[in-house]
């Protein structure tokens, strides 16, 4: 079922409802998260919140990369003296700094193995059909 869902390329997230606490094994098989039985409203909401937070983190990584790549392009074309007076470059620089600070401040989340692998899956996969590439 998970494979069928992925094949459709909807980019939708999938958590599995399990009896015990399987943790890492389940993440390895390709699920984004898991909820342990018995299902409660709280645990379901928490799992959904986690997945939303992960997606937000991942889209920041994507934006960070897109802006750094743009910056590197300008750096290749212009001299240092031109760059510091170029409005586009200065704005990019400010935004990448801001993103770097945000991402570094949130890096504790990656200490959790399931979160770490889930985030990697999110950012190293092919772009979702509904997310425009390059922002």
């Amino acid at each position: 079922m998970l494979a069928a869902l992925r094949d459709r390329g909807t980019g939708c997230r999938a958590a599995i409802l399990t009896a015990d606490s399987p943790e890492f094994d389940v993440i390895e098989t390709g699920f984004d998260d898991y909820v342990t039985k018995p299902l409660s409203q709280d645990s379901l909401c928490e799992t959904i919140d986690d997945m939303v937070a992960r997606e937000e983190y991942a889209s920041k990584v994507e934006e960070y990369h897109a802006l750094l790549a743009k910056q590197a392009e300008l750096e290749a074309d212009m001299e240092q003296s031109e760059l510091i007076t170029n409005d586009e470059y200065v704005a990019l620089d400010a935004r990448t700094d801001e993103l770097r600070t945000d991402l570094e401040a949130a890096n504790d989340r990656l200490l959790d193995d399931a979160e770490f692998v889930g985030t990697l899956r999110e950012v190293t996969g092919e772009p979702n059909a509904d997310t425009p590439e390059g922002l």
Partner: protein
Amino acid sequence: MTELELDTAVQTEQNTYELPDITANTHLERIPAGSNILLSGPPLLGQDRLVYETLARGCRYDQPAIVVSTERRANKVRSRFEDVIDATDLENVYVVDCTGSGKQQFGDDPYVKYVSSPSDLTGIGIGIAKCIRELGDEVESGLRAGLISLTTLLQYADERRVFNFAHVMSQRVAAADYLSLWTINAASHDERTVNTLKSQFEYVAELREGEGGQREMRVLGGPDEWREWRPF
């Protein structure tokens, strides 16, 4: 030395990683915990050796090693360590083998995690997470990881995926106070790609062959950046 000074000295020891003697002439001697180092230079100039020696140095401090290898099979990686460390220390050397060639031949091995291909970046992350889980408390005094090489990853996956992978990996290293070293052959990729990737590393050590065939290194980044080329 007063008690306070002694405390500070111990503290410094714990929050940094000692590098091998071959870097003694550069300023890469002690690196703050949580740092990621990119070793950039042409092939056969000793980047790989620098990674192996840095990881082997960790044995003195009970710091296990994980090597992510894209071209050299796990058994070859582990046998390279046999030359420099004791057999008992080899128990702390783990390999994530993403050459895609070892699994059938060697089967499961507690020290080796197999990944089907260098393009499976999530698989590499899973391999690393599994090694860390198996090490358990062993990583309390630190962990040294080496990835050889980014150049191979860039041949199998596009620049965006590799960047995102490097970002998440390096942030995990930073959050957990580990040390990581990555190798790249900068000449194989366009400058923009290399510059974008470089931004993810606290230190970039560039290697070159200087006049008279002497290997030289310069270090960019860190508190006392050393932009001058030095033999090593």
